[in-house]
């Protein structure tokens, strides 16, 4: 079935929901496609039907999402949930699957509000059952009220790690230890940014109070942890790490790893959009203007953490800005007032992002956790190690696509989502060149597995 819309928005997180609400209010025909069963994205997952008890555990920042979600649900925007978008073209035609049926949708404007994903944490043993992302563990808590029943080891760095610990303590989940891998020197490098981020003092206090809560519960808290490795045969049995020159081992069935989040760039790479490597966030960021318009593309916008990690509040503001730009595209007589209408949101965005330079500097993942040792698996799907990638480079391999032909690295079911950043960094490091010169995998449709029957179900003769 082929459908036309004024605006197609992919993703019903903070940015997608606010942009949909605003554009629907301006009488545009808006369709929001989201893979989940409920609106909210990852940060506000399940917000429309969470229990009071669970919302209490998750805290006020989570509960704040209810207002945005309610406005979205009450808007005239069409919310197509359980929809997997597996193709998007530059002329804004998209293909999606819902209940085993392929649909085709054409739109005058497309907003990619596809957010962020947890940065892969390639350490020895990270493929063992019992290892999960801390963000993944939080998804289980929000979406399914599911928590560990046995003491967990939490390892890594970044605000989400402390937030999860804080939520677990409120939920009565036992924490065996917190292994903080952030490097002390980063904190000092971050000090000037901290002064500039003065307006975000409240957020810092919030972060500190979470760390204090962990300490109050007398949970072993190791700072400056190095050489994390997960041990086990067919499942996790322990975590080993170095702390102040001593090797420690903690027995555990469950290990939660986290070292920040990165933009989900699958759609922008599919579009062959221009991406730049960010040294501050150690990831790819697609090039956009302040409204999120993708460079050299007509009517395709990016809103939210896909524009670089800045958090939920900034995602809302970026959603507002994208909506204004889309409105001026669809309704050109409005274009003259775009700057005036955008000014307060531009100012708001500055405030939303005030703390970001500090967070980026303080929690930039250690080099050893981004560019792993030879024996560590980089590509989980095809089981390719960092050492194999280095071997390819020695044989003259210049980039990820060649590494892929050599080894099937990045060619498994996840299509490079879990290894792409690591492969780029390992090659750049080995060749001693910039990540921009190394590049990324050539991402192609379908972005998610589609069966032949699902493909054949499309009634569009052009497909």
């Amino acid at each position, binding site marked *: 079935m082929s459908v036309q819309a004024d605006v197609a928005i992919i993703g019903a997180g903070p940015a997608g929901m606010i942009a949909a609400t605003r554009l629907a209010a301006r009488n545009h025909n808006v369709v929001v496609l989201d*893979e*989940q*069963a409920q609106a909210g994205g*990852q940060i506000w997952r399940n917000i429309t*039907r969470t*229990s*009071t*008890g*669970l919302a*209490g*555990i998750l805290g006020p920042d989570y509960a704040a999402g209810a207002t945005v979600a309610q406005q979205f649900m009450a808007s005239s925007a069409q919310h197509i949930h359980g929809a*997997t978008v597996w193709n998007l073209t530059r002329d804004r035609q998209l293909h999606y699957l819902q209940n085993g049926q392929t649909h085709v949708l054409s739109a005058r404007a497309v907003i990619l509000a596809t957010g962020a*994903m*947890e940065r892969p944490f390639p350490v020895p043993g990270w*493929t*063992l*059952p*019992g*290892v*999960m*992302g801390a*963000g*993944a*563990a939080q*998804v*289980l*808590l929000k*979406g*399914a*009220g*599911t*928590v*560990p*029943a*046995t003491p967990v080891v939490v390892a890594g760095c970044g605000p989400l790690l402390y937030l999860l610990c804080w939520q677990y303590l409120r*939920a*009565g*989940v036992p924490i065996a230890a917190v292994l903080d891998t952030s490097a002390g020197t980063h904190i000092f490098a971050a000090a000037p940014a901290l002064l500039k981020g003065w307006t975000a003092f409240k957020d810092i206090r919030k972060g500190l109070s979470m760390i204090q809560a962990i300490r109050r519960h007398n949970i072993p808290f190791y700072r400056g942890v190095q050489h994390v490795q997960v041990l086990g045969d*067919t*499942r996790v049995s322990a975590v080993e790490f170095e702390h102040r020159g001593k090797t420690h081992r903690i027995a555990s*069935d*469950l290990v939660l790893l986290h070292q920040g989040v990165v933009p*989900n760039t699958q759609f922008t790479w599919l579009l062959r959009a221009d991406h730049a490597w960010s040294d501050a966030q150690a990831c790819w960021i697609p090039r956009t203007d302040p409204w999120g318009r993708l460079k050299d593309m007509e009517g395709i916008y990016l809103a939210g953490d896909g524009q670089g990690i800045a958090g939920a509040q900034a995602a809302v503001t970026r959603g507002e800005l994208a909506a204004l730009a889309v409105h001026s595209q669809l309704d050109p007589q409005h274009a003259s007032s775009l700057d005036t209408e955008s000014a307060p949101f531009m100012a708001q965005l500055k405030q939303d992002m005030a703390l970001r330079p500090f967070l980026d500097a303080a929690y930039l993942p250690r080099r050893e956790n981004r560019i792993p040792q030879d024996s560590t698996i980089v590509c*989980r*799907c*095809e*089981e390719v190690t960092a050492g194999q990638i280095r071997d390819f480079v020695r044989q003259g391999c210049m980039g990820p696509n060649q590494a892929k032909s050599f080894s099937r690295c990045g060619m*498994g*079911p*996840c299509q490079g*989502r*879990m290894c792409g950043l690591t492969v780029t960094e390992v090659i750049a490091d080995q060749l001693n060149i910039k990540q921009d010169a190394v590049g990324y995998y050539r991402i192609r449709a379908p972005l*998610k*597995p589609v*069966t032949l029957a699902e493909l054949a179900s499309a009634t569009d003769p052009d497909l």
Partner: protein
Amino acid sequence: MNTILFKTVQADANTARSGTVSFEFEGRILTAPGGISVAAALMQNQVLQFRDSPVSGQPRAPYCQMGICFECLVQINGVQNRQACMITVEEGMKIRMQHGQTTFAIVQTEDAE
């Protein structure tokens, strides 16, 4: 494996979700709260291994819970490579693990030359 690894958080257990559903995993009948993902439903039933890798046969389990890593691939109602973390568990679902590489038997039909 007798260790209880995952459970429903107390604050949520008191609230009625969308009832309870029963489903089949590897021939066993299991139950879980309705409205949660297949991955969460299996983990609440202490299923730690979802598949083994097609490359070396290593055991694998969900890593990202948000549709990124494809570690949670299972067979649901006869269809392979379903992302357990992205699909809501339903009454009567038949779920199976995925073992290694899929092999296809080559069938010679009579009219084949």
